[in-house]
Structure formats: C-alpha cells, structure tokens
C-alpha cells in the first residue's frame, strides 16, 4: 500500500476516534494484510497529512500518546458558539499541585505540602487521579511508605503536549549568592 492509498484511510481512522493513535497501534491495525504498510510508510503518510491540514480548521496534531485530529485553537471562538456550556476551570490549589507533580515527579504528597506550605486535600489528588492526569508510581522507602505520584500521558494529551519537555520552563530561582548580606542587614526596619 502506498502513501497515497494510506492517507485517506488514516484520515478516516483519525476522524473516527477522539483518542490519539500511536504509529505502532496503526501499524498493528494492518497486520495480516498482504499489503501491510511499513511503519515508515505510516510515518510518511502522517507527515503529509499534517502538512495537508496546515491551513485548515482542523489539524493533525502529535501529543504524548500519538496523533489526533483536533480543532485548531484559532477557531475556538466560533466553535464555542455551538455549545452553551462553559469550559471547566481548575482551582489554583489543583493547578499548583499538578504543576508540582509534573515538574518534580516522582513526588510524595508530603513533599507537595512542604513546598506549597499547606496541606493538599484528598479531593485534589482524587480528582487528578480520576481525570487520569496523575498516577501512583510506587511508594517511597520512608516510614509510612508514602505514595509517589507522577503525571500520565493523558495529562500531556490534555495540555496538547508531546512530552514533559514541552512544559514551560520553570522560572529561575535567583541564586542566593547574588544576595549581599551587608546590604540587607543594613535594613533599619527592625523595631
């Protein structure tokens, strides 16, 4: 099967499901066929499709678990008019928790609490696990064997990312050495 035959089949597959499809998964779909395409053929066809949709209202996008058709964010305004429901909003507590898990995984709940300075509610962890953004990675060898959490591919898929590397880089912590004790100790506000 050549790329030209493969492309419409892939378009049909991507249109039929919301789940991202990985190259390996697509390859397996053709297994047993006499004219089974190679993984390279599939890769090439996908590459051409990505280009084909470059100026369309939908795009073929690579996220963590594979490729999927999605509506280009530029057209979100019009699409939103089709529905009256508001998108879900996430609390700062939830976002800070998931940010810590994403950047510091594997991390325990206690470590999250240390950095945030407040306790993390069970509901937040549960919501994150239910959304399949966060999973249990194991347990830390400490008294009480605290659970270690990490983010999932679904988390990356949700935020339209291919890998954790695509997360915005953490803002730099200013080096404590930049700080001159003699200046700050001149602080006369002690009263």
């Amino acid at each position, binding site marked *: 099967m050549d790329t030209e035959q493969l492309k419409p089949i892939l378009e049909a597959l991507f249109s039929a499901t919301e789940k991202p499809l990985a190259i390996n998964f697509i390859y397996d779909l053709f297994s047993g066929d006499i004219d089974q395409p190679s993984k390279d053929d599939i890769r090439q066809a996908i590459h051409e499709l990505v280009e084909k949709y470059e100026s369309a209202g939908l795009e073929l996008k690579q996220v963590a678990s594979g490729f999927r058709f999605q509506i280009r964010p530029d057209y979100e305004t019009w699409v939103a008019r089709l529905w009256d429901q508001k998108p879900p909003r996430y609390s700062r507590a939830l976002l*800070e928790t998931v940010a810590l898990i994403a*950047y510091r995984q594997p991390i325990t709940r206690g470590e999250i609490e240390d950095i945030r*300075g*407040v306790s993390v509610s069970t509901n937040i962890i549960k919501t994150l696990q239910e959304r399949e953004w966060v999973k249990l990675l194991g347990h830390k060898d400490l008294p009480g064997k605290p659970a270690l959490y990490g983010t999932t591919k679904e988390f990356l898929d949700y935020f339209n990312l291919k890998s954790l590397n695509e997360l915005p880089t953490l803002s730099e912590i*200013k080096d404590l050495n930049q700080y001159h004790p003699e200046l700050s100790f001149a602080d006369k*506000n002690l009263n």
Partner: protein
Amino acid sequence: MSNDPTQPSLIEPLMSSSVKNASNQSEMPFALVQGEPLTMIPQDLYIPPDALQVFLDAFEGPLDLLLYLIKRQNLDVLNIPIAMITKQYMEYIDLMDTMALELAAEYLVMAAMLAEIKSRMLLPRPDECSEEDDPRAELIRRLQEYEQFKKAAEDMDALDRLERDIFLTNIEVPNFEVEMPLPDVKMNDLLMAFRDVVNRAEQFASHHVQREPLSVRERMVLVLEKLSSDQFTSFLDFFDVSEGRMGVVVSFLAILELLKESMIELVQSENYAPIYIKAI
C-alpha cells in the same frame, strides 16, 4: 456586619502604606465575592467583614500570603525587611482571629516562624557573617521555591488545553454495517462502584447516603414523570387503590419526600379543597 463603605476601615493602618503600589498589583488573581468579581485585593480600602473569608480563601496558604505582602510593597524576596513583613502578617492573623475566621494551622506555624526569625535578627551579629547564618535564608528559600511553582501553575493554566482552547473532532460515522460497540457494563461493576462511593462518602463523614427503600425512590421518579411543570395534577391521581395499602403508603411517602426536597409544589386553594401537585 454591614458593607457600608463609610464604616471606618478595620485594616487601614495596615493597608495605607501601600496605596502607591497599586499598579504593581494588577496581575495578581483574585476571587469572586458573592458572584461579583473582585479583580484585585483591596489595597487601602475597607474590606467588608464578610469578604474577609474570601480574602483569606484567595491565598493558597501562608507562603502565598507572605508573597503577596512582599510584592505589594514592591520588595525583593531576597531582601525581605523581616520586621515589617512580620508586623503586617501578624496584623492579618490578628484580624482574622478577631473575626473568628477559621484559621488554618499553617498560618499560625508561619507566624511562629516569623517571630522566631525576627527575634534572632534582633540579636547582635558577629562581624563576618555568612549567608547561612542569616535566619531568613530558609524562609527565603521556601518563598522562592513556592513562587516558582505558583508561576508554573499560572503558565500551565495558560497552555492551550482541551475543553477550553482545543476541541476534539466529533465526526459522524455513517451507517456502516459494523456499528461502534457501546461499552458493556456488568451488574457487579455497578454495585461495586456504588459500594465504593458510599464507603468513601462515609469516611468523610457529614454525608451519609440515606437509605429510603428503593420503592419510595422509584415512586418519586414516577411522580415526577407524571408531572409537567406548567400543569397541575390532582393529588388523588397519584394513588391507585388497586395497589393496596402498601402502594398508597409508598406513594404518600414519595410525595412527602419530594416536597421536603423541594422537587414539587403542593397547592390547595382553601381548606378541604382539592390538592394539586405541580413540578418545579
């Protein structure tokens, strides 16, 4: 408590020093007070007492409150005038205490930590002190680390994401011979899901899932189905004598339960007049 803006400010002494820094505050997220958006935390104005809880809720904890106080003064985290910040922090804590707001223990721990740092800074220091000796170092480290992740959470919130910025395609699959299968659910899975959710709810106390017999619940549904919201249906229509005494009792309990839960309205124009039921 009133929201009268002419009432003297409770926290004016605390806030007045920072009026000039108002512009520096604009990007800080805030909250909703009774549905009305408060785009920024009041700087020099009176905070209505019943907004104080919201005010406190706007912070993700003591580190967040401290960062806010520092930013509001346009100060560098690396160079906190500890006495001033401690004073402001303690005023907030006192105020919240006076208002009998439930104050998370973390806020009090922070207050103790600030007091300790302040007391240590009051002690005479040796001439050549290294930065490790600065009692503020640990606090600064924690503030910086928290600020870093606070920013990371904001950045993450700004990413394009599903349901808000990106929508998945939903394309019709025409009448193929092969229909898309629907997920299969076993009765057992349903029962276990119910058991688990009830067990969990009980662990967190306060909610217990009530246990009216399902026959009453089912009858409640039948009553609702029979009602249409713009019409009145006679009370008597909900009783079927052929069901016997039990059936009548179940119907009666269902109607009482629906009434208690504000799911229906009962109407009677005068004593002994016919009773009608109406959907909400």
